[in-house]
């Protein structure tokens, strides 16, 4: 779990400054990211964790923070 959080943070770091980012901060509400980022995030999860993000997975609650994404990756069993 912790390792996945660090991977997510490293991915976020490609797009915005993560120094003050807490694990629970909603990155969409905070205005850090846009739709293109969301698409790249999904592609990154699929590629790096060898999983498929299906239509049923598309819920903002799965992708809006470091914790949410790390939890989602864990739930997918990868």
């Amino acid at each position: 779990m912790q390792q996945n959080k660090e991977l997510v943070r490293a991915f976020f770091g490609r797009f915005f400054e993560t120094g003050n980012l807490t694990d629970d901060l909603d990155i969409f509400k905070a205005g850090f990211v846009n739709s293109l980022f969301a698409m790249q995030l999904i592609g990154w999860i699929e590629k790096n964790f060898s999983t498929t993000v299906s239509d049923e997975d598309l819920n903002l609650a799965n992708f809006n923070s470091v914790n949410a994404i790390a939890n989602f990756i864990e739930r997918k069993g990868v």
Partner: protein
Amino acid sequence: MNKINEVEARRDEFRAFTREFVSPYATQHDNEERIADHIVPDLAKRGYLAPFISQKWGGEGMDMITLGMLHEEIGCGCSSVRSLLTVHGMSAFALNRWGSDALKEKWLSALVRGEKIGGFALSEPNAGSDVSGIEMTATVHEDGFLLNGTKKWITFGQIGDVFILMAKAEQGFTAFVVEKDMPGLTIEPILGMTGTRGSMLAQLNFKDYFVHQDNVLASPAFGNVVMLSTLVFGRFSVASGSVGIIQASMDAVIEYSVRVQRFGKPLYKHQLVAQMITKMLSDLTASRLLCRNAGELLDKADPSDIQAVFLAKYLASTSAVRAAADAVQIHGANGCTDKYPVERLLRDAKVMEIIEGSTQILEEKIADIELQSYEQRDGK
């Protein structure tokens, strides 16, 4: 046989099909502002409408490198027919990627077989490149939504049976699958376009059009993701089709400049003509390689495929305009008449610079993404 050789082996098949069933009708499509009736059945018979769909739904699971080559060859013959492959493919892609099992069951086989025609409805009178400006609303009604608003510039909107559409719902931008034959939708043909004139554009007017919640793609608020991922497919197709326009320009120029003599020698022996041919060939080669690179990354589902497709579309579409303009120039007055294909190629090429991300939007996006990569590389 390596991958590239395998793919190239199919080029002859695609080219032979194009020469027999597509190219001879390109002028007709341009003049009549519609594609000939036999085009869809001919494409369907060979499985070219949505060949990337898996065998389960009747496709062949074609990889994107090969698909790009197919769209290039068709685009070399007629950009309007390639436009059909683009938007029809986009609808199949979106349904395949984000649709529920029920939606896949209902539509994919029919799209692959050409029994239904698909389209992509994103642009509006006040929203094209600026997707955030979309005004069409989706308000909750019983077990679905009511759509109100207008979609404009919808390629093959005149004959489409099913459209992937984005509207603004309370939860955010949401993607829907909408069917033509339902109350509340009226379709107006758009005529008099500059290029890809056979693409049968239409304006779709929705007034209290009811769409069931089962026709939501992915989930509400993820409409942007659905549409952007589908646009990557569309952009790749347009890039490949643009390579086809460059090839067609080159073919026309070679044929003409060898045959026609000026100042006692064939045109191609004049140095400034040779310079134009050389630029055209380098643009053609580079654009084709960028498309192949993008196709390879799409096949690998590599996140960098977005930037690779941006680059391929940027170079191929801008090069297509240069190549077609030079082809007209080399043809002189003949190039300005409809007796030669190059004036149509120039009109078609200009459209490639506008659709699926204008040149200027691509320049902003490409620079933004490169900046991210630079900062990541340098740990800034």
